[in-house]
């Protein structure tokens, strides 16, 4: 019986290992080739850092990366403010208002991003004539994408909150505003933070909304990569391998830091 168990465990480990390998193989192979002079996978040439140097010296690439990051943090910030206010307000609002915000909030969540991007573009650009080059449609599109997820990550925190604390603060002479910022806000803060983080990743990963709402001369990482795969510039192509590797390393770093700090916080409790 025990032998059977061990065999099962070994089989499980091999299966999981193989799946992880398949999942990471493309990323790792690309990472390896990003340090070589080769422009095609399979043929090995010499070691080089050129791809990384190109990534930061090519103005077009630099602007594209910076623009994507700025857009992500900017729209995530707006989405966090709107989503959090919405969640707190709706939590205390009457049933009808709460229902309206709750249902409307679900629309971009379940909707396909193509439809969200298309409908925002049709309304703002086609009907209202807003110029795409003002970045207004793009930012609004990304806030529409992100704010609902901030709302959804704040709501559970509000539900867990001890409501009597707010009343207690008021009884002790706090103004409603003080009670909100000193009592409610600290309790929902983890939800706000994770909502913001989620908003940033959603904006960074978006292709569909950006493709319908972005200015013609501006590219996010997603739209740039899709265009670059159609082009034939090998220098750009291999610089993007370097970008993929850098993002992979950043993700590992962030996950590791989050995990370690989470573990420390867990030890304190």
């Amino acid at each position, binding site marked *: 019986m025990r032998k059977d168990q061990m065999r099962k465990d070994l089989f*499980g480990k091999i*299966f*999981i290992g193989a*799946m*992880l390998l398949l*999942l*990471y*193989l*493309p*990323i790792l*192979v*690309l990472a390896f*080739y990003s340090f070589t002079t080769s422009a*095609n*996978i399979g043929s090995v040439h010499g070691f080089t850092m050129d791809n990384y140097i190109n990534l930061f010296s090519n103005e077009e690439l630099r602007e594209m990366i910076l623009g994507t990051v700025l857009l992500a943090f900017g729209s995530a910030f707006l989405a966090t403010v*709107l989503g959090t*206010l*919405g969640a*707190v*307000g*709706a939590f*205390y*609002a009457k049933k009808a208002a709460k229902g*309206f*915000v709750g249902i*409307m909030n679900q629309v971009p*969540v*379940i*909707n*396909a991003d*193509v*439809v969200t991007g*298309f*409908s*925002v573009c*049709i*309304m703002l650009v086609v009907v209202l004539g807003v110029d795409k080059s003002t970045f207004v449609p793009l930012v609004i599109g990304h806030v*529409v994408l992100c*704010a609902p*997820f901030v709302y959804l990550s704040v709501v559970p925190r509000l539900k867990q909150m001890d409501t009597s604390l707010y009343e207690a603060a008021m009884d002790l002479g706090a103004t*409603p*505003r003080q009670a909100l910022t000193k009592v409610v806000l600290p309790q929902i803060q983890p939800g706000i933070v*994770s909502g913001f983080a989620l908003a940033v*990743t959603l904006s*960074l990963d978006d*292709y*569909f909304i950006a*493709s319908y709402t972005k200015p013609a001369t501006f590219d996010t*990482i*997603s739209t740039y*990569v*899709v265009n670059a*795969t159609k082009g034939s510039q090998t220098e750009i192509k291999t610089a993007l*391998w370097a*970008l*993929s590797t850098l993002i*992979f390393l950043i993700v*590992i770093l*962030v*996950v590791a830091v989050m995990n370690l700090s989470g573990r420390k916080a867990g030890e304190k409790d």
Partner: protein
Amino acid sequence: MGMLRFSRKQLCIPYAVFLLCFVAAPLLVIIYYAFTNGEGQFTLENLTGFFTSPYTIGTLAYSFAVAVVTTCVCLLLAYPIAYILARSGWRQKSVIVLMFVMPMWINFTLRITALKEILTMIEGNLAFHPFLNTIIGMTYDFLPFMILPMYTTLLKLDKSLLEAAADLGADPVQVFCKVTLPLSIPGIISGVVMVFLPSMTNYVVLDMLYNSTYIMGSLIGSFFSAYDWHNGSMIALILLLIILVFTLITDRYTEEDTGNRGGALL
């Protein structure tokens, strides 16, 4: 606070207005466009056109085929992964789960680029197997979304039920089919929702892997670039209806808060 008495519920006004202007209004606009023609007159032509044209119906069928096959492949791969991880006593299992989720945070176009390079090396020319490559690409893109909800459900599964079934004489296959599988249905459904709908619309995967066949997502784009807002809106509306029906059906089976789109770990 001056003249106006400050009230907590007023805080939701900005967000409610925002939702009204940029979620509700755009929907009304595409409904309007979907049922009018170039002269602004009411028409059902866009609707009947969609269901009578072999081109658009073919696209719908192809989207369904891609979505069904992708979902099945993801299910067949993700269920064993989630099952093994949830049942194992490995000390580092949360780290392994994290490793399965981590690729979601790398921009998907870059991940598909990586996959494309590997597939090109293996196949030489990607154009020979467009459907196969699309399925591989979609699976590669969406697999983590399937693993996570199933893992969460399987982890919560009450182990004493399995022991009870075994004690009452069920063999391991019976225990799995009659206890484990039925109890993991909520996780399976959430996984299916998160894979099926995006694989009907994520045309970038097809684009990047040189599959020139349209799916529903690219169909909207093709009307859009032809300045045909009316037919474009009709496609968007039909897609929205499919999503709505799918969500309403599956909502009954899923647990309340299986976080969508990678939110579960944050």
